[in-house]
């Protein structure tokens, strides 16, 4: 019998809200949304954690410009290190940015292990940065953290609409709480996507333009905070779903 699953709920009990940033495809801004949201909450003196669950391509540390990968402190478990005011768990602290090819079953095991040993303590928000697709990590979070709420990242591209629609349908199937959608990388409007979201009864929380200068801000916290992207995320946190 695997003892780890029996301790997860208790490990998370000091956390008020758990928000997973998901969506269909890769490369649509999930990590940017997750990281900027965490930075925003930290700025406002909220207690916030960020958990990068994209084991095959962890990248939140790149946005946060974290370059030293030491083992997190041990104390009756693992204490997440604080980076720019965020309690930040990333597998990179253990893999040291080396390739980490894991099959689904390994991903499930690693998620279970981290959830069982991490002492988040009291948090207002735990933000989870999800990998693309409805695969093991997404299924595991839904299974292991029943009260997780979801923010759906989406781009207006025709290529990405069917997949984001499928992700939403899948979450709705098991009555998961969807906070709303963040539309990212807008060039020439997003009418088709917004229609689809309306049809699926998902609110739009923020609309973010494609920003040619965004890349320059990656890894530079001061610049990142000044991007139009960060501004939109700030506005979003004043929206109804965050005031509940």
């Amino acid at each position: 019998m695997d003892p780890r699953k029996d301790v997860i709920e208790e490990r998370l009990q000091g956390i008020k809200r758990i928000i997973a940033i998901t969506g269909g495809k890769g490369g649509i801004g999930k990590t940017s949304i997750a990281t900027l949201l965490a930075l925003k909450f930290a700025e406002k003196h909220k207690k916030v954690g960020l958990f990068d669950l994209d084991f095959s391509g962890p990248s939140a540390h790149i946005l946060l410009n974290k370059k030293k990968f030491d083992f997190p402190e041990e104390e009756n478990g693992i204490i997440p290190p604080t980076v720019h005011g965020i309690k930040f768990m990333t597998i990179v602290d253990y893999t040291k940015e080396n390739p980490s090819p894991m099959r689904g079953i390994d991903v499930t095991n690693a998620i279970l292990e981290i959830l069982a040993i991490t002492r988040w303590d009291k948090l207002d928000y735990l933000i989870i940065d999800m990998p693309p697709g409805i695969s093991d990590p997404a299924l595991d979070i839904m299974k292991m953290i029943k009260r997780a709420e979801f923010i759906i990242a989406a781009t207006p591209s025709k290529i990405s609409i069917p997949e984001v629609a499928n992700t939403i349908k899948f979450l709705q199937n098991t009555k998961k709480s969807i906070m709303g959608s963040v539309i990212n990388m807008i060039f020439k409007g997003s009418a088709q996507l917004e229609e689809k979201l309306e049809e699926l009864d998902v609110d739009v929380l923020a609309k973010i333009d494609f920003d040619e200068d965004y890349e320059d801000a990656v890894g530079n916290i001061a610049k990142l905070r000044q991007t139009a992207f960060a501004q939109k995320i700030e506005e979003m946190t004043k929206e109804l779903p965050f005031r509940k």
Partner: protein
Amino acid sequence: MHEWALADAVLKSSQKVAEKENLIEVTDIFIKIGELQSINKEIFRKALEATLEQQSDTQLFKNVSFSLEIVKAELKCNDCGHKWLFDEAKKDLDDTETESIHFIPETAHTFLRCPKCNSQDFEVVIGRGIWLEAIEGEN
């Protein structure tokens, strides 16, 4: 020590099983420790005892004894089918690598390779980490 968190999990799990089985006292807890995680038996025993002292339901575990058994870790390559033991492989790991696997056993895929074909795509057949084998008690 992060072992405390796992010891805590073992006790929580045991308590849950005891409740389900209507035990009023748990006398024995049988635990298997997969070698991959390099958890020291005596450290884990201490972790269990220390965690027990902080627990509320001391009545249930007042005379419990822990049986700890190390299970050799067997690896099997998904690519070429070769089987090998972690025991043989670990001499090639440095301290940081062993420590990573100690915290998150799946980082074995980061630091180990199949000795025959060099693939990182292998399976941990047995001996991954902490396992609650059985509990015994009275009802």
